[in-house]
């Protein structure tokens, strides 16, 4: 779209968009194309020679049990993170929306974790759940008798990174649910109350359905977050371990490519991630149209 009343200078127009285009071309498109090329090439470890191998790298990664395991881990991790943080966010937002006093204070107390870096959130939770020092670990082991050791057990490690990733995302979800809740028309709630619907019934039959676009949007955003932005959590807390139990797809690209210098495989894995995020983005934009349609 363009303004009806606009300027005609051609040179200035190109000059204005130039910085953005330059950065985009150099740091986004050139690397992306290089990645695509590398994914169909096989090069020796010293990077001297490379040969065109069609889909060899892709066949390789999809027949590699470690990669398939990593897909499973990533899906489980993302779903667990998204569901945990969305549930808590929705719960806290609907409570805060009921509160008559102190809304501003409540909001302040709940939004600050957004500003904590994923890597730092990982450190905080590692300290809480550390098998020999953590206070929560002590509680789990000594009071509840659970054999808790995230440094040795894969499941425990996964639970720890889910907690660290979900904790900081609760505030993000909280902000969006608060905005969504405030958009629910009060007249609907009052009408339902006149018809004798109690607070819980009103929530499930009116508020919750009206929140569903927000819910869907947050589901997408949280899954993207869990897929791509939790790299810091994994890198500071578990480094993909123990025994690859927290080796998510993005962490595997980093490990295979940057540490292991397996260029072809790493590039092929990147391309798989690229296809994934294109799919998610397209899906999200389909949904944006629906959001407009349903909004009141």
């Amino acid at each position, binding site marked *: 779209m363009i303004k009806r009343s606009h300027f005609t200078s051609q040179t200035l127009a190109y000059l204005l968009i130039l910085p953005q285009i330059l950065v985009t071309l150099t740091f986004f498109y050139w690397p992306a194309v290089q990645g695509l090329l590398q994914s169909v090439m096989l090069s020796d470890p010293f990077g001297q020679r490379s040969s065109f191998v069609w889909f060899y790298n892709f066949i390789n990664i999809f027949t590699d049990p470690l990669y398939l395991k990593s897909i499973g881990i990533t899906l489980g991790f993302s779903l667990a993170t998204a569901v945990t943080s969305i549930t808590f966010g929705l719960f806290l937002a609907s409570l805060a929306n009921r509160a008559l006093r102190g809304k501003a204070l409540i909001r302040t107390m709940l939004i600050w974790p957004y500003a904590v870096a994923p890597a730092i959130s990982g450190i905080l939770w590692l300290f809480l759940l550390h098998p020999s020092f953590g206070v929560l670990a002590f509680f789990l082991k000594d009071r509840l008798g659970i054999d808790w050791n995230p440094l040795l057990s894969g499941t425990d490690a996964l639970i720890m990174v889910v907690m660290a990733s979900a904790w900081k995302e609760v505030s993000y979800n909280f902000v969006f649910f608060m905005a969504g809740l405030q958009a629910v028309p009060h007249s609907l709630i009052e009408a339902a109350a006149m018809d004798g619907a109690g607070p819980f019934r009103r929530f499930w039959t009116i508020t919750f359905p009206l929140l569903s676009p927000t819910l869907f949007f947050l589901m997408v955003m949280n899954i993207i977050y869990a897929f791509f932005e939790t790299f810091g959590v994994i890198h500071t807390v578990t480094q993909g371990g123990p025994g690859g139990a927290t080796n998510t797809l993005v962490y595997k690209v980093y490990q295979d490519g940057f540490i292991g210098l397996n260029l072809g495989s790493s590039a092929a894995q*990147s391309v798989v991630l690229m296809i994934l995020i294109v799919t998610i983005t397209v899906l999200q934009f389909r949904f944006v149209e629906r959001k407009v349609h349903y909004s009141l």
Partner: protein
Amino acid sequence: MVERTPILDALTYGFLMLGICIVGFPIFYTLVAATLPLEEVSKVPMPLAFGDQFSVNLSTAWEKGHLGQQLMNSFIMASGITIGKIIVSMLGAFSIVYFDYRFRKVAFAAVFCTLMLPVEVRILPTYEIAANIFGPLQWFIDTMHLNSLIQWWVGSDFEITLELSLLDSYAGLILPLVASATCTFLFRQFFLTVPEELCEAAKLDGASAMMFFRKILLPLSVTNIAALVVIEFVYGWNQYLWPLLITTNPDMTTAVIGLKHLIPQADDVPYWNVAMAGTLLVMMPPILVVLMMQRWFVKGLVEREK
């Protein structure tokens, strides 16, 4: 409130308090740990009362972790990204919305598609381009055999090699992150809501495009800019993967990355008190920005995703 529900209201506040406590517990615990001496912090379970070693732990963390330099780096990186992003995307959106030119739609689509290329899906090739920013030009010279052409033309042995590395530099930390589709969108959406009359009036008065931008669009965009400053500062400060890739020198890396060296590993003396003091220092600046500019933060967060 629609009806009187005293029990439910009490429960609401009760659960809210509980929720706030759960959300706040990690930072409370960190704060306590940062004030304790080593013997206390290694007790299991650690006592939940404040100690008196806060300043000692802080200064130990400061020295042990190069924190002075690294916090400075984080600050430069975060502000560089914030300012760069806002300038680049504002000018870009101005060009897309207020000018008519042939490649307008192409430019818009090109910026739009970067949404689908986060750094996580192009780790190695982006590292390679940062290692030599002139890589594409060099490739162009090589494939067009420009070197042999020039050799033939000049008549002597002459070769162009272009190399400039952005590794371990502020430019390398900032530049790749200043292009942002979301910010450009936000400004585009906002510019589209600016009344047509303003531009018409400005043109009638003989204002140039840049004059219109400076005197009218910029002042109108102040709230949007404030909202973006909060979001992007937090984003820049909390970057992890990119600084990890391109910095190897501990004096060039950011505080969030450097923190990792303070965490006690399996065989170390468990200096968790020092680690937690350092963690507090590093996490404070973005938290303060969010809390102090809360109104802008909420606006920025919600509008950025539209």
